[in-house]
């Protein structure tokens, strides 16, 4: 199982690095959104709550622009059937999930320092801020992986992905915004249990997705 998983993962990375356009567009989208927000704000003094809302909106839409690509590419290049014959559904899901987690960690690692730099804001609780960004990104990647697989099979994929992702993503955005705001603001330290909620939420989504992915990938 592990060798198939790593082969799939290696294949995805190789294809993406050979044809960098999709990844470049994802990174460019994330960067340009961050720059346009900071440009629009024009050095205005914003509250920590507004900063955290803006940051997570940028992260959310950056995810929307790139995370369904890994499954859509398989459908567009008509390789999904071959992949289904080569590996079982669980392997495919895990390899795509790992790919998306790594890709989105890179996007978050690009967006967050850019935002802090251009908006000239520095978190008071830096460790909490980093942990929140990491746990929030993990949750976003775990949700968008399974939803990306659904969208790849549907028509009008681009807009549908945002429509179906947003309601499921609200708990993650809600908690992440609250935690980011607390870590920017100072005062009482942010709650550890909210951070644990994000990790637990990701765990539940990944478990359910792992169990149900075969119903999406293979025609019943």
């Amino acid at each position: 199982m592990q060798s198939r998983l790593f082969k799939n993962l290696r294949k995805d990375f190789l294809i993406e690095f050979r044809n960098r356009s999709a990844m470049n567009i994802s990174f460019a989208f994330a960067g340009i959104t961050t720059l346009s927000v900071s440009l629009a704000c024009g050095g205005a003094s914003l509250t920590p709550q507004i900063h955290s809302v803006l940051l997570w909106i940028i992260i959310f839409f950056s995810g929307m622009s790139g995370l369904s690509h890994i499954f859509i590419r398989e459908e567009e290049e008509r390789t999904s059937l071959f992949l289904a014959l080569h590996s079982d559904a669980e392997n495919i899901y895990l390899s795509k999930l790992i790919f998306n987690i790594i890709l989105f960690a890179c996007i978050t690692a690009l967006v967050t320092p850019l935002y802090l730099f251009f908006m000239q804001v520095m978190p008071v609780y830096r460790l909490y801020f980093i942990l929140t960004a990491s746990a929030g990104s993990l949750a976003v990647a775990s949700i968008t992986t399974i939803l990306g697989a659904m969208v790849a099979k549907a028509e009008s994929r681009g807009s549908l992905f945002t429509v179906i992702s947003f309601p499921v993503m609200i708990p993650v955005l809600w908690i992440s915004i609250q935690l980011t705001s607390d870590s920017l603001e100072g005062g009482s330290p942010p709650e550890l249990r909210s951070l644990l909620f994000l990790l637990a939420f990701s765990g539940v989504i990944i478990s359910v997705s792992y169990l149900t992915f075969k119903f999406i990938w293979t025609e019943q």
Partner: protein
Amino acid sequence: MLIYRLVFIFMPVVIYMSFMWAPPAAILGDASRILYFHVPVAWVSVAAFIVSGIQSILFLVSENKRREREYMAYNSAAAGMVFTILTVITGSIWAKLSWGSYWNWDPRETSIVVLMLIYIAYLSLYSSLKEHPNRGGISSVYLIIAMITMPFFIFIIPRIYSSLHPDTIINQEGKIHLEAAMRITLFASIVTFTLLYGYIYRLMNRISRLEIKAEEKHYDI
């Protein structure tokens, strides 16, 4: 089933009880009568979502009656969507009367809007999979994933964040803070709206069954 036809008797009775028999609430006065419509439609919105989710799980685990399960999940979601819109409308009117504005992003208002968004997302996904042979499987998985988030909105958020919303029927003390006549009217209304949902749901399922039969016989309807 005959039981759902009781809605034709119960509904006029409940309307009479709501406007004539139940006393007005102490502070809100006659405006409080919207309670007898808002709470039942909110209950049906959640119940329809649960029915839809159960049908989706059964679709995935069962070998037979899959086509039937697929349209039963869809029909419950479609009916639930209408009740959710009614919940939002009646809730906004009540909010305007008691809090002075139609919308406040109160935790409970947020949770019902999220439920509505989930219904919209599910119905959008279902319609965009029109030509796909695995339409039932994909949309069922979406509903199951969406169901994971619902306890967060219904049970966790309203208890963590302060809310202007009155106590729910099942509150932390486990008590119902209503006069006897108001309580009877409310429960009669909940039963009636549940019957109404059941009646509409059965009709929708019958129509779907007939459509499938017509498709199988190559009739063009």
